[in-house]
């Protein structure tokens, strides 16, 4: 078979335009939806109906948009946490554990208690946020320190520390702070809750059940901060340099060990903040399974967003939407499949950044011994 045109795949020799990565990612996501639709059709579903439902369940009304953003909030923070570490090629897969430690430390404010429920609310929330970040940062510090001083692989330590954090959390909620013997602490008093739009339902009845909380704003600010660190700050340049070539960084006079520890702590602090935001904004108590694997979803988000903090926001909202809509479709499991396909497509789409593909008129065969 010989077609009048050849598909020519060439390695790009020049820099690609600035918009290309965003365009390919967007195309990859759309393609992922199309492929999922085909699979859905194959297994007997109705992609159009499912698609319509996805839209109405996620962005169809103010209430569902709120649900989507609530879901996106912890995802943005863990996505940023992973992006920060990945920038320096530190494979922090411990965001899950850092999330739990953040939640635990923030709970200390409530359960010790460090501050009474009638203390000024800004003070309480600030204390909880700071404690959450400290908790996450400690959980980032340990693998960072081991990596910096003893070259212990952070992949192993962060992974293992996930389990330690979850079990540590379990010890407290099963044993010390258990309510009624169940795997949870008592419900936090209102004073410890992040303000939600629903809190103003009395004045504005339309806000009833709109659970979007202050954590979302915090997550957006965190994204701006991370962007500033990456793109504008001196430290961001150093992170980039170390990430790309640690030898060159050392040669340029950088203290790599210190930076590894600092970056791991920043990464942990962001994940810890996500933990604080979830327990103070959504769950309102420390309990088992406060994270349906946010920490691991964060890894996927960071990759799909190509470590760009603003893209992390968009991808998190997309993934939040997938989770919100996906769990209502019965039987469940569709959302996870979509996530997987999106990740796969986006990673594959990188090929387009490295190669250019075009059509070319077929010329006479050139290769000797062609068996076409």
């Amino acid at each position, binding site marked *: 078979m010989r077609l009048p045109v050849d598909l020519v795949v060439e390695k790009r020799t020049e820099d690609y335009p600035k918009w290309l990565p965003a365009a390919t990612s967007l195309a990859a996501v759309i393609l992922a939806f199309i492929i999922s639709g085909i699979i859905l059709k*194959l297994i007997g579903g109705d992609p159009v109906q499912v698609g319509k439902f996805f839209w109405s369940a996620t962005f169809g009304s103010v209430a569902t948009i709120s649900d989507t953003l609530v879901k996106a909030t912890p995802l943005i923070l863990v996505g940023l946490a992973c992006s920060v570490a990945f920038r320096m090629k530190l494979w922090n897969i411990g965001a899950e554990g850092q999330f739990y430690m953040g939640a635990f430390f923030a709970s200390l404010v409530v359960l010790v208690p460090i501050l009474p429920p009638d203390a000024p609310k800004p003070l309480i929330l600030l204390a909880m946020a700071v404690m959450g970040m400290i908790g996450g940062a400690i959980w980032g510090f340990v693998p960072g320190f081991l990596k910096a001083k003893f070259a212990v692989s952070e992949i192993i330590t962060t992974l293992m520390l996930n389990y330690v954090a979850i079990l540590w959390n379990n010890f407290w909620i099963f044993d010390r702070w258990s309510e*009624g013997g169940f795997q949870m602490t008592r419900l936090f008093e209102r004073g410890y809750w992040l303000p939600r739009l629903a809190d103003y339902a009395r004045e504005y009845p339309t806000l009833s*059940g709109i659970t979007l909380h202050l954590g979302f704003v915090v997550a957006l600010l965190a994204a701006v901060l991370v962007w500033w660190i990456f793109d504008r700050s001196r430290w961001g340049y150093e992170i980039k340099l170390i990430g790309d070539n640690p030898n060159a960084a050392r040669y340029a006079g950088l203290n790599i060990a210190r930076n590894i520890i600092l970056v791991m702590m920043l990464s942990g602090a962001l994940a810890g903040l996500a933990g604080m935001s979830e327990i103070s904004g959504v769950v309102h108590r420390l309990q*088992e399974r406060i994270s349906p694997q946010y920490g691991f979803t964060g890894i996927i988000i960071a990759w799909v967003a190509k470590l760009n903090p603003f893209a992390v926001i968009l991808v998190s909202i997309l993934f939040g939407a997938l989770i919100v809509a996906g*769990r*209502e479709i019965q*039987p469940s499991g569709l959302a996870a499949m979509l996530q997987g396909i999106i990740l796969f497509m986006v990673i594959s789409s990188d090929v387009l950044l490295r190669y250019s593909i075009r059509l070319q008129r077929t010329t006479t065969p050139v*290769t000797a011994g062609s068996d076409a």
Partner: protein
Amino acid sequence: MSNKRLWSLLALLLVLVMLVAACAPAATPAPAADQSASAQDTPAEEAPAQAPADTSTDAGTYQIPTTEEGKYNVAFVYVGPHDDGGWTQAHDQAREFVENNVADVHTAYVENVAEGADAEQVIRSLARKGFDVIFTTSFGFMDASEIVASEFPDVDIIHISGFKANGENFGNLMGSMENMKYVAGMVAGARAKADGNPKLGYIATFPIPEELRLGNAFGLGVEETCPECTIDVRWIFTWHDPVLEKEAASSLFDSGAQVVMTGADTPAPAEAAPDGKWGITYDYQYNCTNPQCLTSMYWNWGPVYANIVDQSRNGEYVGGWEYFDSDTGGMGLFGFGEDEELMPGVASIPEEDLAMIKETYMKFLSGELDRFDVFSGPITDNQGNLVVPEGVSLKQEDLDGFKEFGSECETCMYWWNENISAELPSLD
């Protein structure tokens, strides 16, 4: 070269697309349409006019829970998959019962909802869509149910296995499974005695009053048929973990147990039982399929739910603390029902024991016996203390309270019956 490879890839894609096209028509059987319903049925956004759903918005094999106009809409929130062969499937069976036995009702479910973070959004989303009654069937949905109930006063939310209620549209519901555990204990004791191995096992979930109560009920039942039998306990700290539960069952069998009963969700004890040993399963009527299974202590939520749905429609539902006994038909033992055959391990129990078991079972179903009869004295704990003297029965608060958790119980459920060889769980 690379061109050739690309072409073959394109060809493969083409084949794939054609395959999809070929399969598509066959793979989407439209569910039998209920024409009468579709006539007035035009739910706002999703449901297509021509293809009305039988249970919810139809997207091929996928169901999306939405309400149907003109019907009374009931939603269920499950913690596990709807076909888990245990707790959740028992509820799903009840959902089908409601769908089929209550007039003009429409049901839908959301499965695999994580306790905690996700639950509130899911329940709220259902309330928002206009469901009239929502059953939330896991302990961890309690707070979420309470919050959403306060936001939607027109929606009745019934939480299973909790302890909160608001006296209006939010109530809790549970039943006295201790009755069935007691009879199951009689079965297990008789079986072990007949096999000549007086050792039994109990897989317990969490150190909460319910688990001690059910274990003690089982122990008291065992005592009826096998006074010399002893019971060992394994704590697994989960409701649903097939692997862990199976490991616990194996551990009990390995340490000599002849029959293992479970307080968790899966048919693991029967699956783990080696030849000549036996397991008793929980929650779902039809999960006792393995020949090693003696019986399942099952929930039959259907009649109870149907009743609540009727109450709700008539505006009579008051959210309170509801604890039904076995005379409601809300529970049973598999194999002892009218159309059922006894499992081989039960059928071969000596005649006089079997007769006594059957008689006791019937008394519980008829209401002649109830949970307070299970816990009537004399009862001695495994430290030799007399817990309940002759002629006295425990009160409801004694049945479900620990002092440590603020209960006003006098004889709290913090003891093990004398034939249970385990230590009490630590509560601090």
